[in-house]
């Protein structure tokens, strides 16, 4: 990089401070006397190997960051976030019932799902569109992905506990009965087995 002369310094400063690319004429109107064009080519050479380049776009000149620096200007930052209750329930329904339409998910959940919920699951890479169901309206269905299995440490969807397992684990207790059991306490086990007998 040669030591810049005064015209080069002025051209450099004017282009740097400019809010838009400038023509040779516009630069000249700021800098005054001097060979603007020669200064521009000398500067373009100087900046060639640097992180900043002086480039010509049509009739206008401007500074820009070098093309191979783009990845430094963009920084990805990952922030861990816990999946919401709606998201977890929706994901569970898809996993147990796939392929499943949005309407079916809503009917199983008994609550409408917001668009954002499916977006989040899609963004997480856990669900994917899985074709359309051949019924009126041809609704889209959803299914889980390999990333879903990986994240939850499952070899396949068959590893998900079945309904009977869930019941045995007390995870299928209807809300009111579960509450009753929690209150009465001691008879939890008996009620379970009696229920089966009756």
């Amino acid at each position, binding site marked *: 990089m040669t030591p810049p002369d005064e015209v080069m310094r002025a051209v450099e*400063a004017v282009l*740097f*401070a*400019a*809010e*838009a690319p400038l023509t040779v004429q516009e630069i000249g109107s700021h800098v005054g006397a001097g060979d603007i064009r020669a200064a521009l080519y000398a500067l373009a050479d100087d900046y060639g190997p640097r992180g900043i380049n002086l480039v010509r776009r049509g009739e206008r000149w*401007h500074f*820009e*960051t070098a093309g191979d620096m783009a990845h430094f*200007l*963009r*920084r*990805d*930052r*990952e*922030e*861990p*976030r*816990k*999946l919401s*209750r709606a*998201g*977890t*329930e929706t*994901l*569970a*329904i898809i*996993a*147990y019932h796939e392929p499943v339409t949005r309407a079916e998910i809503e009917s*199983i*959940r*008994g609550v409408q799902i917001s668009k954002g919920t499916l977006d*989040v699951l899609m*963004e*997480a890479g*856990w669900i994917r569109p899985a074709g359309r169901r051949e019924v009126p309206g041809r609704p889209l269905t959803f299914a889980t992905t390999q990333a879903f299995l990986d*994240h*939850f*440490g*499952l070899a396949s969807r068959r590893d*998900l*506990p079945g*309904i009977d397992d*869930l019941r045995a*684990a007390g*995870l*299928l*207790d*209807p*809300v*009111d*009965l*579960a509450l009753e059991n929690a209150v009465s306490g001691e*008879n939890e086990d*008996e*009620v*379970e087995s*009696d*229920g089966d007998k*009756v």
Partner: protein
Amino acid sequence: MLEATADDDDKLELDIEGWEGPLDLLLALARTQKVDLREISILELVEQYLAYVEGARALKLEVAADYLVMAAWLAYLKSALLLPRDPEIEPSPEELAMRLQLRLERLNAMREAGARLMARDRMGRDIFPRGNPEGLRTIRKARWQAEIYDLIAAYGRVSARTRPVMHVVAQRPVMTLETAIQRVSAMLGQRVDWATIETFLPADAAPGYRKSALASSFLAALELARQGKVELRQKSPFAPLYLKGTA
């Protein structure tokens, strides 16, 4: 700029509004002595100030109260400096004079510092940042987290919420009236003596089921009594209820 104002005698005479307080006026007057502030004559300065304020009043200009307070204080300082020393008076007039001189020095120093600061190459006036920066971007990506337990529990919760009727019926331990009538009729046929209603209940029933069986068996006893197939006996309310077949 400041000097220009101070040197302009006409303006000095007339424009009391232009001063940033009495100390500012004193400093401007001190500078007319054209010596270092450390060398100024305080007495001369006092004279200048008093003359200035008098001049303003003669022109019927309104003189703000703090200028008059300063004038009174300076008049006192002047007489103290001129009169023979009274060692009893603290602080001494010399100390007061020096205090005034120190204050003027400090104000002057800050005034000059301010002027030098303003004369620097200033951002947006002399120096410019890049006119059209591309900008740096930070892209925040959520790394979504959920545990397998959360997933399974969620499914259990959904299932429980949406199929409550089925489970409530299945889970509730109930002895129907028909079952009770059959049981009680059958057991009466095998007995000849009075027996309490409790002996008609399943022996190893859980408490919940036992309650249901008791209620059903009681209703069954009433129904069988109506049909004339059983006699009932009870000494008083809540006393044991005895049953005996009529056949």
